[in-house]
């Protein structure tokens, strides 16, 4: 069975059998290259296909479904095969969920926490980020043995390669030169949430070779913003309506995949420089102006006719930014649609009608 045919769970078990360590990683920003260099496969936990039952005893209904699904997965024992957890500091809910798992429920496996600075403007933040990387490395070394510096350099190179491949994905997508539907496009993007780079790179290269240069340019280009493209049925609806997501401002998408390479010699400083040059993100404290400018640049580059904000219900970092972003885009003549989404709940009739009406309006 090839990597492409394997399910995510089978792939992770296969990797474990090959001697790699599997870590459950909660959203959103973390130094993948460092984990890869320590022979860790990070398996990201965003919207696993489980039904929330046990998590209801631990979390209130007004907590976002990314957090509720993540905790459910842990409580159902579906993370038992993992060798550890990594909790990046993304928002208040993930912060406290990390503490619930570590302090109250007991994960019975190592838990690591990664704080990325929320004051991204000063020198202090950059220096702190480097120290936080080194601190994570030292903590991981206690469990996994010493880091090989050459391995880190190699994984950083692979990270650059992956980012450049994703960059090509988005460029082709923008030009309408990638012969895949929206669902297939994001399925491929999301393989990066668990494939080890040795497998991800050939997978992405193969995908590009098969689909490059044959796209349907006449489809209606729109930008998709928000956290992740869920429910997946929305992507199928776009296909049916002749809409092409020409670029995105998704947290699982361009905000963390398009990592500018760094030429610095020190690998930790390289990672820091790349991190601070990534597209603006609400979870990193990016000013609204920067997000606005980023969205406008995507619209200009792709000729998008509108922007759809597909926002997870109760996601505070996103919901605070939405009013100003939609307002600014409207002032500049770009129509917007805001969807309030619960993950894995399918496409409601109301949501379908709103999307259809929006597409009709911008056609």
């Amino acid at each position: 069975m090839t990597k492409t045919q394997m399910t995510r769970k089978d792939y992770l078990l296969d990797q474990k059998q090959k001697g790699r360590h599997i870590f459950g990683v909660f959203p959103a920003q973390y130094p993948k290259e460092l984990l890869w260099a320590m022979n860790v496969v990070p398996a990201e936990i965003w919207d696993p296909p489980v039904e929330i039952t046990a998590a209801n005893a631990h979390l209130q209904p007004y907590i976002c479904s990314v957090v509720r699904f993540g905790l459910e997965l842990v409580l159902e024992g579906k993370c038992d095969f993992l060798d550890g957890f990594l909790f990046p500091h993304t928002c208040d809910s993930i912060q406290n969920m990390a503490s619930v798992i570590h302090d109250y429920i007991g994960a019975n496996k190592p838990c690591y926490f990664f704080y990325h600075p929320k004051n991204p403007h000063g020198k202090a933040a950059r220096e702190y980020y480097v120290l936080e990387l080194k601190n994570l490395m030292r903590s991981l070394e206690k469990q996994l043995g010493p880091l090989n510096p050459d391995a880190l350099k190699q994984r950083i190179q692979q990270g650059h390669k992956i980012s450049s491949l994703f960059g090509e994905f988005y460029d082709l997508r923008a030009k309408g030169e990638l012969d895949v539907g929206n669902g297939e496009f994001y399925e491929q993007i999301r393989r990066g949430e668990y494939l080890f780079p040795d497998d991800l790179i050939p997978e992405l290269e193969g995908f590009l070779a098969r689909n490059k240069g044959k796209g349907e340019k006449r489809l209606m280009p729109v930008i998709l913003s928000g956290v992740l493209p869920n429910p997946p049925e929305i992507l199928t609806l776009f296909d049916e309506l002749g809409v092409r997501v020409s670029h995105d401002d998704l947290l699982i998408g361009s905000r963390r995949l398009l990592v500018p390479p760094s030429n610095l010699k020190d690998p930790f400083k390289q990672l820091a420089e790349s991190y601070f040059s990534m597209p603006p993100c609400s979870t990193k404290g990016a000013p609204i102006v920067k997000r606005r400018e980023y969205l406008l640049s995507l619209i200009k580059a792709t000729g998008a006719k509108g922007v759809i904000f597909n926002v997870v219900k109760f996601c505070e970092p996103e919901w605070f930014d939405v009013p100003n972003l939609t307002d600014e885009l409207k002032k500049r003549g770009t129509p917007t649609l805001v969807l309030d989404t619960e993950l894995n709940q399918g496409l409601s009739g109301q949501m379908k009608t709103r999307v259809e009406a929006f597409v009709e309006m911008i056609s």
Partner: protein
Amino acid sequence: MSFAQKARYNFMKDLGAPALMWLRQSQRKKRPRKPNPYLGPPLKCAGRLREIMTRHYYLSRFSKGAKPVAWVTSGAPVELLRVFDFYTIYPENHGALCGAQKKGPEICSEAEKKGYHPDLCSYARIDLGHAFSGKTPAGRLPRPDLLFCANNICQTVLYWYKELSYYWNIPLIIFDTPYNFQDIREKDIEYMVCQFEEMIPELERISGCKYSHDRFMKIIGIARESASTWGRVLATMKHRPAPISIFDAFVHLAPIVSLRGLPIALDYYRILLDELEERVAKGIGAVTNESKRLMWDNIAVWFKLRDWSLLFAERGLNFVAATYTNAWAETIHYLDEMSPFESMARAYSLVVLNNSLNYRLKLMEQMIRDYQVDGLVILSLRSCKPYSVGQYDLRRLLGERLGIKSVVIESDMTDFRAYSEEQTRTRLEAFFEALEV
């Protein structure tokens, strides 16, 4: 800053405001308040508190142009701003004021009209709603020259202040306090100290004042003494009967939040402490027949303070401890004039909400023992995720370890559209039965 505006501010501070306070006081009809059989006598210094806070909001109207104005989060290290003579406004305190006056939904809806989701923090919605509409029960708030935000209480303040900064196109200074998933680390302290060093030139530029280390040390001393006195005020509730209740403490919290680092806050808490010690000596309780003692977890529900204070007092129940009121007393003892920046980093990053839930569990266990608490009321608050996520487990673990009875109620602190009287009453009745009161 203009000379005329400074002169006007100083006139209002020295003559106008005191005259107005005197006039209001003399016009207030002296209606003898009917004593409530379940509550102790009202605090004598409540009038002084009202005067201080009214004066603070009143004078703020004249501060613009006379002083640099900053809007500040409740957990931000305001001591540094005091060096540059900023007039500080606390939007969370203003939110509480709006909540207490039942203006929450009306002002929140001004933000909702602009697209802010009703699920977002209601303090933020009130503040944004006020910024968009000017609506406030405080008359008028001065538009800030600076926004100063520390994420030691939540990340929400970061998103919220970013909005204000964008709306008014004014500078935002963020004090980033790494979350203590486990123990605080030296590199965290160094990061925070570096941030202070980066802030100073920016604060000098905005305020037009030079940094004075001597002044900073004096302010640090006043802040530590004020917080320590506030801690002693809270500690009087260890006595049986407790001379005040947490409902009183929620109100008397205002100076330590809004006027921290100023002599007026310290003076006020000394007066309050004297009065409480006198009440302890005379055996005067906040609740006339204190039979059981309770602890509160979370922010206050501002629009229900009076109702609930009576509801519990009627059953001989007094709230004697709260993690919320304790937050302004628990870490300020770290402040040290000899190492002001390091100690300020420690004091502000070790507050309860910036620590792991394990820390909070231990803190609550200790408080339950110290204050001889019989029951726990946990407020689940959709506006405040760092306070609310983990409360179900907290309740379970405290029950298992200490056998303490507890109840979880749902509400918002200011937006009463998210409150159900019937559902809350039902839960509380069951709790009262369990407590056998």
